[in-house]
């Protein structure tokens, strides 16, 4: 066990959380990520019991999730596993596949609402048809000139993955939009 102290993508010891009206933004440094790519003639694996989804798809099973990122390629995630060598774990679950550690390549931010759906917020953030953002959808898109993955877990819970180095800019974009949406709730 290393004695080095990690920091989150937003540069603090602990995750950042913002509550804005019914909306909550939560940084998720505990989520481990690894990419999985099929090699030629490889059989599609079912790592951690996940049935890998097709284009635009997201599957969630317990602490694990997977979303399609490119033909023959997925991102696999695990909650509370960021301190582990998740890529090594995944490699064992997907023999013969190319696996690459991605945990610290990304900042993972959960957005949730206790009131209605996140659609009013999302339509201010991403150029996706929010009507299709209900459950188990994964979109590769952009927010404020930043490439992101938007994972629609359900209409009220979304996870955004952006590049770790731009975590501050991404958080600013999300928080600004959320604050405006929250102000709109009160009108």
């Amino acid at each position, binding site marked *: 066990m290393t004695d080095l102290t990690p920091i989150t993508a937003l540069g603090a010891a602990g995750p950042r959380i913002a509550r804005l009206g019914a909306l909550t933004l939560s940084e998720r440094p505990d989520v481990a990520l690894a990419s999985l790519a099929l090699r030629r003639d490889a059989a599609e694996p079912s790592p951690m019991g996940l049935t890998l989804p097709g284009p635009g798809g997201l599957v969630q099973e317990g602490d694990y999730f997977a979303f399609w990122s490119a033909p023959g390629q997925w991102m696999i995630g695990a909650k509370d596993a960021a301190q582990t060598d998740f890529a090594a774990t995944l490699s064992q679950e997907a023999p013969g596949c190319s696996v690459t550690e991605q945990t610290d390549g990304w900042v993972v931010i959960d957005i949730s609402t206790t009131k209605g759906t996140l659609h009013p917020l999302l339509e201010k953030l991403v*150029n996706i048809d929010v009507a299709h953002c209900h459950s188990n959808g994964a979109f590769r898109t952009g927010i404020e000139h930043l490439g992101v993955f938007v994972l629609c877990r359900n209409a009220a819970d979304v996870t955004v993955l952006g590049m770790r180095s731009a975590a501050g800019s991404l958080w600013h974009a999300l928080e600004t939009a959320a604050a405006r949406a929250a102000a709109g709730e009160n009108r």
Partner: protein
Amino acid sequence: MTRLPGGLIDRDRTVTFRFDGRRYLGHPGDTLASALLANNVRLVGRSFKYHRPRGVFSAGSEEPNAMVELRSGARQEPNTRATTIELFEGLTAKSQNRWPALGFDVLGVNDLFSPFFAAGFYYKTFMWPKAFWEKLYEPAIRKAAGLGSLSMEPDPDAYDKGFLHCDLLVIGGGAAGLAAALTAARTGARVILADEDFRLGGRLLAETHTLDDAPATRWLSEVEGELESLPNLRILRRTTVFGAFDHGIYGAVERVADHLPQPDTVRQTLWRITAKRAILATGATERHIPFANNDRPGIMLGGALRAYANRWAVSPAHRVAIFTSTDDGYRTARDLAAKGVQIAGVIDPRPEPRSTGDFPIFPGAVVTNTIGRLGLRHVEIRQGDQTHWLECGALGVSGGWNPNVHLMSHHRGRPVWSDAHLAFLPGAGGPAGLIPAGAANGKGTVHGALQSGAAAAEQAMADLGRDAGLPDLPQADDSPATQTALWHVPGTARAWVDFQNDVTVKDIKLAHQENMTPVEHLKRWTTLGMATDQGKTANVTALAVMSELTGKPIPETGTTIFRPPYTPVSLSVLGGGNTGPEFRPRRLTPTHTWAEARGAVFVEVGQWMRAQYFPQPGETHWRETVDREVLATRAGVGLCDVTTLGKIDVQGADAAEFINRIYCNGFKTLKTGMVRYGLMLREDGMAFDDGTCARMADDQFVVTTTTAQAGAVYRHMEFARQCLWPELDVQLISTTDAWAQLSIAGPKARMLLERVIDAHDTSNEAFPFMSCAPVTVCGGLRARLFRISFSGELAYELAVPARYGAALMARLVDLGKDLGATPYGTEALGVLRIEKGHAAGNELNGQTTAQMLGMGRMVSAKKDSIGAVMSRRAGLVADTRVLVGLQAVDPETPVVAGAHLFETDAAQTTQSDLGWITSACHSPHLGCAIGLGYLTGGADRMGTEIIAANPLEGQSTRVRVVSPHFIDPEGGRLRD
């Protein structure tokens, strides 16, 4: 206030506002224009060029005259149309383009000099002396001619943007738009209805039409109620769809808070609407008839007079005349008369009156002149051979209606002339999926608008596989307004065509006389249609006048076409509102917080913020700091965050073959656990990027790129993988952000490394130069170790998961105190690599070859790789420019990057140019300025002296040509 009965204003409440400092009262539901008219204010502004007194001309967004500066302080907004400003409590507005006052404008003298300001006067005048243009003529003209002024303060408001998707976008909420929205929404389709007004209804709000024998407002209320109740329909009020773009995308601006004293959150939202189909139900704009002095306050569009009376219960005068070439003018007279306004007369050029009423009618007559300095007092009528003056305070002019075809033109779709309508109608070639309806398509009656709106929606739904069916629509007026073509009243005095840019019939005649007859030339010669209103009330009339002059029919004279935006859009809302540090995304390195805490000075490197240097107490100049960092690294050990270099993970059975094809030098023999320098070429044989490639396993490589080209190299490799060699079993993914990578460089680097690494033999024998290995550090943390050097010293790059980067850096600094461990930034990094002669972005600028870099022999002839064949082109091979080192002969003289190289006795011209300096710095190691540069015949000039010329600064520095390797040319240090 002078109000008529009726109207759609809330008379129970009053709103206070100020115009030019005077306090007035209005009602909710008013626009600034209607409220000013209700307060008997007819004079609202001054014209652009001649400073002629102007008043409200229209009742909508086509307004050319009533432009004001809205609000004050930082929120002051110039050129705002009073006809579209929704009145709010505390509103302040000022007239513009006048001095000292609206009623007495000194620059009104321009009007007296109008003969000198004819069409094209900019191009004909102020030609001499040439030097006067920039300093005198242009500033003077800009001051004299113009519109409103800017506050010059930062915009304090927030702006938003958003994205909407729908099956059908209905543009315009009048009769056609409402019928379309209703028809489509009832099928369950997702519909967006956007209207620029704050109230739905369009012209129905301005008319006295009945629908099913009831006032139109009752039907509007019912429809609005139903539309509001439909979850699949979204109404965007105060929203202007300003442009049709590619792939069914429409740009729209929602004025979220422009009707409030101050925004609660955002002021405006820019919507990008992706619509499978769209309906253009934007109605039509009435046109006027130019006659002498037709621009006085009080002279308005007839339809606008009617709108002010019916919707806003106001008339600009108690006694009003109508000049009309269509039946529409009679409707205006009847409506105003019904509200108690005295009608001085209806002047109709047609020989027979088209209607009767309790007012005088002058058939076969035209208006030939007007008087009234600051507001209309009389109009001159010519009827047959007789002329006489008619007293009136306002004149409504009706010359027919031009369909608002603008968005249909946004993809170069040309409108088509219709003799039946005496107007341009939407033609073919408009945006795919955009269907015109209602008055925008020449269906100007209420019945026609309702029916065509519904039919357009039915067609759109059928295209999308939905069966709509026409709804029950109310019975409505279907009597067409007959009209005759009267494009202007000939005369000798000036008759305005384009009010906003002060273009008259005379100007068009002059343009014709000077052979500026094509529409495009006419526009630029006269500036017609080039004002903020894009000539909405002028273009077609101007075309008709030119047609008359050329003797060609209108369609042969030309067509008018429109570009976005339909109405002006603020740059703030287009820009999205992010300013200052959030203007664009910033990328921070894993050690950013640590570096910030140590007082690092940062520099932008693309989107990255990198530590440039780390000043220490007592250091007064950045050079002092950088020299210290460089010397400390060469003497002990330096630490630098090099995470920004791109990292690409390459895996697969054919990974080695892929790498071998990507790089120009050989890679097949690279053993696992070893690293090799690699050079990538573009297809054209020029150098693309360089870096290292580490073989972590038989089927796994880690490619590093320069910071600047990280994205481009990854894209290039993906292109090669997917398109050039799809048969190869290769998988790529970026890991740039995943790993914090720290450079540990200097003779004591190994000693420091051994203090953090867990059980790994780092001896020169076990881990020689260009080795790599997965290791663990600081008690089991997974890491990657590369023995590579950018500084020329014994050096390592140690990568750990990014979250540990700051902690590892702090640990290394702490554990290396006795070794002199010194963090260094990009400045020292640059000095170290220039001293070593390593190429970087400055040398790899897309115009250089491997041969120029001194790496020509690296391009392997034993294999094929991207760019290899093209690099052997005769033209490239014959190039004798090569990277050399340059050392100032006088140690005190600076060497400047970008300086060009010449023989010492040669004239400094393009022809005698020998090359240029790519990178330069002060070398604390050598104690003088040094540089790298490309020099023609460089290999044969070693030891000679040449001139580095910097004409911008007037510098001419004598430099000696030396090896680019200023330190340790044998490379012993990095191999020890």
